[in-house]
Each structure stands twice: as structure tokens, then as C-alpha cells.
């Protein structure tokens, strides 16, 4: 399943490396991380990673295949 996670602010190069499995794009003061998510466990893991980095998650949604 494909997901995108929209977080507040521009992510630095170093920080995007924390999500090596996702692509990212920076736009209008936000960063969108997107890509394949293996399963629910992975999804919650991504959320936890955002939290431990102090990122504010604005939106999270499943993308059409």
C-alpha cells in the first residue's frame, strides 16, 4: 500500500535520511514523505519515527495504487 505523510516544515537532508524507504518533496513550508508501506506495523513505526524526531504530522493518507 502506498501512503503519504505530510509534516510541518522543511526537512533537512540529514533528516530525510531517517526515512530511507520513502521519497520526499518539499513544498510551501511542508514536507511530503511518500512511498510503499509494508504493513500496519510499518505505518505505526513511521509515525513513531516522526514523533521521536519532533516532527508535526499534518496529514497522513493512503494513495491510490
Amino acid at each position, binding site marked *: 500500500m502506498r501512503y503519504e505523510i505530510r509534516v510541518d516544515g522543511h526537512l*533537512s537532508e*540529514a533528516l530525510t535520511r*531517517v526515512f530511507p524507504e520513502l521519497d520526499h518533496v518539499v513544498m510551501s*513550508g511542508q514536507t511530503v514523505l511518500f512511498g510503499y508501506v509494508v504493513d500496519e506495523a510499518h505505518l505505526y513505526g513511521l509515525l513513531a519515527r516522526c514523533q*521521536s524526531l519532533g*516532527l508535526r504530522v499534518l496529514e497522513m493518507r493512503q494513495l491510490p495504487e
Partner: protein
Amino acid sequence: MAGLEESDTDPTASYADPQGDPFLRTRFVVPARPVTFLRRERLVSHLDQALHTPLTMVNGAAGAGKTLLVADWAAARDRPVAWLTTDAAEQGPGMLWAYLLQALRAAGTTLPAEIGCPADASRVPPNLLARLAAELSARDRPAIVVLDEYDRVIDPEVADQLEFVLHHAGDGLRLILVTRTEPLLPLHRYRAAGDLTEIRGAELAFTAEEAAELLDLHGLRLPAHATRGLVERTGGWAAGLRLCALAAREKPDPETYLKEFEADRSTVADFLLAEVLSRQPPETQDVLLRVSVLDRFRPELVNALTERTDAGPILAGLHRQNAFVEHLGQDWYRLHPLFGEILRAHLRMRSPGLEPELHRRAAHWLRGSGSLTETLGQGAAAGDWEFTAGALIDDFAIGWLFTGLRSEELAELFSRMGPEAAGPATDLVRAARDLSRRDLDRGLRHLRDAERGLAGELGPTAGPDAVADAALTAEWDTAGEEPGLVAARLSCALLETLAGRLTGAPGRAERAAAAAETLCDRAPAHLLERHPELTALLLAHLGSARLWAGHFDEACAALSQVAESSAGAATAHAREDSLARLALIDYLDGWLGRAERKARAAVTATERYGLPQPSGSGMGRLVLAAVAVDRDDLGRARALLAEAAGADPALADPVMEAGRAIATARLHLARGDTRAALEAAERAVPATVASPWATGQTALVVSAVHLAEGRPQTAVEVLAEVSDEQSACAVGAARAQLAAGRPEAALDLLDGVRSEGRAGPAVTVRALLVRAQAADGAGDTATSRRLVAQALREARRDGLRRPFLEAGPWIRPFLDAMAPRVRAADRVTSGAPASAPPLPIVEELSGRERDVLSRLALTMSTEEIAADLFVSVNTVKTHLKSVYRKLAVNRRSDAVRRARELKLL
């Protein structure tokens, strides 16, 4: 047995470290507040509510200031608060509760030893929580417990357990959870009842005034509008504000700098961290990046990572600045959890591929001077399996793979080890893992590989058959032997002993144990002391192997040593295992009462330490079942056998299998199902050598079947093949001879049974009855009557009934005639409890059973009793069952009536 009971309640039991590994004391320390900490009265006064509600939750994002708020509040209490920082590495409830109990004790809360202690990482003894809650509820002032970083606890069972303790501890417990995520407790219920104090992210956010004060503490004065802008940009986030202050105060014009920051659109932590990091000298940056692979660290360890010597002053400086590191006390530090993750990302970017090397260096340093668990974790993270397995073996910690709180964690850790890792240590670890899962084929193969490797390292290679001997006993006289080899060889000896036990090869176990004894003399004493489980497992395996060989005295010597060893979670498995096997020996010798007491102690030990239920207690239950058959309590025997059938095959060895066959066959025999009895008795137990008693007991059952089906001659022949060393078999043979019409041969056999020695009532009573029957057949009624009366007297104490029931119709007139005089006779044959006045109950009721009984008399329901006594419903049911059994009744009303008759109520 007195010694056994005493050791069971050894007060040091629960203080003893659950795993031989020291408790990480830093986890009980209330974190220190940095000099720049700002106390905010509005939060403090809200937190004061925590004293009045059972549950308090402080939740908010990383870096929101949760921990420092609670730490500051806790430090201001007039008595110590139990503080526990949870650990990501410990997943199971068992470990959490072990630490929680220790945290309570560290805070000066005295807890009685009866509360117990988990011995298995993933389980908590069923009664531990109830006992803890009851203990807390009885206190005048509540215990305050803080669980910091509760979000790391992901096991939903822990939430249920906390909920249970909170509920039953009543006003005796104030629990404060500090967490990033909403815990799985039913918060709405607490909220509705006004039982919850809640401080959430929004409340933790800094107001503009508070932010100004905080910046002031950092030596930064800003105009009000600038501070407001900063609060807006950071959302009042404590960590963000602090980083701002650190980044800005270095600037010639902080105000302009902060304006730029406001305008910048990077994520706050990311931006600020990169800023503050780049402001540090290169050495400091290097330290910060490298320590990001560690959970906690001290200067020497950091020096090992940086290969410099300046970590001490750098860490002290960073702590003073309150930039990244927190001080845990005793020279230990950790990174602020928020920054660890970001720093690790920077490390990966700047020095790709350095991470495994850092883990490896940390592992090597820790091996020399840190805890073994941390060493293993870092070694595994580095993927250096030879090192990791070597560290475990060299520490004499191989027993950890079989028993104790960390066995599952270690099994998981080593499951990542690939087949390419080579060397005796890795083979030993593989063999131990396989043997602990009773994968005999693979385990023995790995063990053989390890032995070959060890023999190779020791010098001249031996022939393929002598590999084990070469590895274990070669070159004893060489001085200056490498200590590592002693550890590896001792580990190897332990596995060899276990292999001997599991394959029913007593000779193999004896040889290995003898080698182990010599090796133990060469091993550093302090390491052996740290690992009591090693010796305990060794002796338990040796004892079991000796038991299989039928060397009961030698088996008892080894097993008693374990059973009487001091209590503690590390050896709980081995003690319980040994107790159950001692019980079997008593049963085989015919001492039912002793067998029952030991078997019960074994089953109880299992419960106390929350060992996986079906561990060795399978053996204990089998013995209890066999005892129940001899007492003609067939329903109970059947229930016990069913429970034991669910036992983990992980502890099945030939002794257990033979025990199961005997108990099952005897039950079928007692129920008159001869075909099922034969089937059970003759089921093959795979073993290298045959066991004399297992063979003897099988023959006894087969012979009894032939007798029951009217073939006395065949019954005689079956037993003729068995050694007459065993009294039970000789008595059985005598009975068969008598039935075959040869009373002289029968009496000869009985005369051959040594009167002194080990035979207990279950054997001697049967012998008396054969004599009585012989006398009866010879027309000597007076002698017969005297012998039956003597048999009844000897049977009474152990509640032995089966021999009278299986004796045959000739005994009936004697028992009937004696009924008026010997009350016990009546009971023996009618099915009432086998005991005589004035001691109408076989066994005293325990205090708890009396509690339950008295509530039963008040017609309380099981659930009400459970709530009233702060125990689980299942516990009450267990007590009820033993009350019924001890009073020999089947219903509550009968129990109450009988208890009144006996003046127990």
C-alpha cells in the same frame, strides 16, 4: 524437608537480582534538573492533584518538558518517590514488574518477600500482582510510583496488569505515567470517576511570559514581541525554546538571528539542532554523533568510540550547557531522546558505514567493564557473532539461554545469528538454543561441532568417538590454561550433561559432570557466584540422569543440593525441576506423603516465580496424580494427568515420559481398564539405556493386568524377568506367586526384601497384605487379622487405600470385622478420607484457605471473595479446590458443614 520450605521463603529471594545481571540503577534515579530549569507553578499545583487521584498521566511530545516537570515535583516530596525509567530493550511484563518492585524498594518501600519475583521475562506470577496490590492497599500513605517514558511499553498486557494493581491497591498507590502516547488504560473510566489527573501537551507548552523567563535563565533578553514570535514559531515547545536560546546567545545580534529563524521554514528541531551542532567544536560534534548509537554512556566508553581521551570534559560541558546530554548519575549520561534520533541521522550522512564499527567498539569496551546484557546487545548490533557468543560463554552465562528473565530476549537476539558465524562459542550457543527447545538432533550435532572445535584448540585431535572426552578432559595438567577455554569447556560440559539426561544416557552425564567439577575448580569463583544457574542446571541434569539409571541415593544427593540452594529467580527453574524429581523418587520408594509435599512445593515454586506454567511442574503434577491413584482419588488423578498432558515438551526427558506412563497406566488399572493400562505402560520411552525402575514399574503393571484377567502364571513370568533388587517388584512377584498357588515362593520373595532401607508404606503395606493373604489361605486367621490391622495402621498416615482395594475379596471379612474397632478400616474401604480420629483432616488448612472458607460460610460468591481478598478469581478457585480436597467434600455447603463439625469456623 524443613530446609526446602525455608529456602522457599528466603527473604533475599526477591531482592536478588533476577538475572545475575545488576539492575541498572540509573533507571531508578529521579533525573536531575539542569541549572536552567524553570519551575512553572501552574503545572506544579496541577500535578499536586496527583496525590489525590489513583492515576496521573503527563503526556506530550518529545522535548515538551514532561520528565523534568515530574522529576522536579517528585524531588519536592517529603519522602522518596519510586521512579522507573522504562527501557525499550525489555519487552516483557516480567522484566517490567521485576524493575517496578525494585524501584519501590529503592524508594524505601518495604515489601514482604512473599510477593515473589518474576523469573521469566514475558510472564508475571499470577499472584504477584494481587499480593502487591493487597500489600499497598494496607498502607497508611500511598506509594507514589512514576513510570517515565511509558510509551516504550508496548505490551498491552502491562496496561491490564497496571489497571489491576491500581484497582485493587485502592488508596495505597498513586501511579504517574509520563508518556508520549496515550496509554492503553481505560482513561475515560478514570476521567468519569474523577480518578485521573491529566496534564497534556497544550498545558505543557510555554506561554510568552514563561518563555521570557526561560530565555532569561539562558542569559538571553529579548523584547516582548520577539519572545512572542519565538513562542509562536516553536509552538511553546520546551526543547525548541532551549535550542533557540543556545543558538542565539552565541550570535552578536540574537534578535535578528531569531527573526531569521522565525522566517525559516525548516522543521524546528532539525534546524535548531543543526545550528547548535555546527556551533560546537569538531571534537564535541564527533562525540555527539558517535554516542548516538548508545542508549547510555560514560566517558571511558565514549573514549573507546572516539579513540581519544577527552570525553570526560566534553560530556561535563555539554551537560552544563544542557544542550544534548542528560546526567543519569554515577558518571552515566544519555542523549536527550529527541536528539538521539536526529544525531544518528547526521552520523549516517557524515560517516556512512561507521555504525557497525561503533557498535563493535562499544561491545568490546562493555565486555571489559560493563554489563553483559549491554555487551551482547551491542555485539549483536555490530553483527559480530563470534564476539557476542564468546562474551556469553566466557562470562559463564550459558545458563541464561535456558532459564531466567532474559532467556527469551537472548533467544531472539541469537536467532539473528547466521550460519556463517564459526567457532566453538557460536556452536555452543546454537547447541544450547536447540537443546533448550528439545530439538535433539540439531542440538547434538552443534554440540559435536563445538566439541570438535574445542578439542582442536586444545591440541592433538582425538578419534571421532572420543571428541567429547577430548574437549572436556584433555590435558588436565597443563598449567596456565586460558580462562576462556575453561568457560567454553564448562559450558560444553553443561550441554553434555543435558544431552545425557535427554537421551537417557547416565554414563554420558556422569562423565560430563565429573569434567565440569574439575573445570569449576579452575573457573574464577566470582563469575561462578554470579551465575548460580550454571551449577544448579548442571546438578539438576546430573540428578535426573542418575534417577533414570536408578541410582536413587546419588540422584538425591545432586537434586537435594539444588532444591535446598538459596532461592532466587535465576535458579527457580532448576530448583523446581529438582523438587519434582525428588518427589518422583519418594513415590517410587513408596513414601506418598513425602512425594506429595515435594511435588506440591515444586508446583508452588512454579507459581511463585511465574515460570511458564507447564515447565517442570508437569513432573510435579504427574507425581501428584500417581499419589492420588494410590489414595483412590481417581477423579483428581485424572484431572492432574490432563493438566500435565498440556506440559511443555521442552522439559520432557525419559524420566518424565516414564513417570507419565506409570501414572497413566496405574490410573487405568485402578479403573479396571486393563487394555488401556497395558497400552500406557508399554509405550516405548526412547533412551540410550534402559532404566531399571521404569522397566520394573512397567512389568508391575503388566503383571497386575494378567492377575486381574486371571492369568497368575503369566503374571509370575513377567516379573521373573525383572531384577528383584526393587522391593516393589519383589512384592508384586510375591503376590503373583501367591495367586498362582505357591505361597512358599511368595513368602520367600518377601523374606528377601530387605526390611531396613528405603521402602515406604506403599510397598510395605502391600507386602503385609500378601503375608496376610497367605496366612488366610493357610487357615491362620489370627495371624491374618493381625497383619491386616498392621497394614491399616501403616497405611493410615499416607492415606493409602489402593492396596486394600486391589487385595481381593478375601480381605473383606477382616475389614468388616475390624470396622467397629479400627475406624480407619471403615474409611479405607468406603471411600471416606483415610484418617482416624482425633485427626480428622489429613492436612491443615493454610491461612489463606481459612480466609476463603470463612467467606464461603458467609455465602459470598467466588467473585466476591476474590474482590474481598484482592486476589484473582482463579486463585480463589484454587484455594477452594484445596479446601474441598482437604475436607474431602465436593460442594460448598458440605465444606461449610464439615468445617463447622471440625470447629474450623
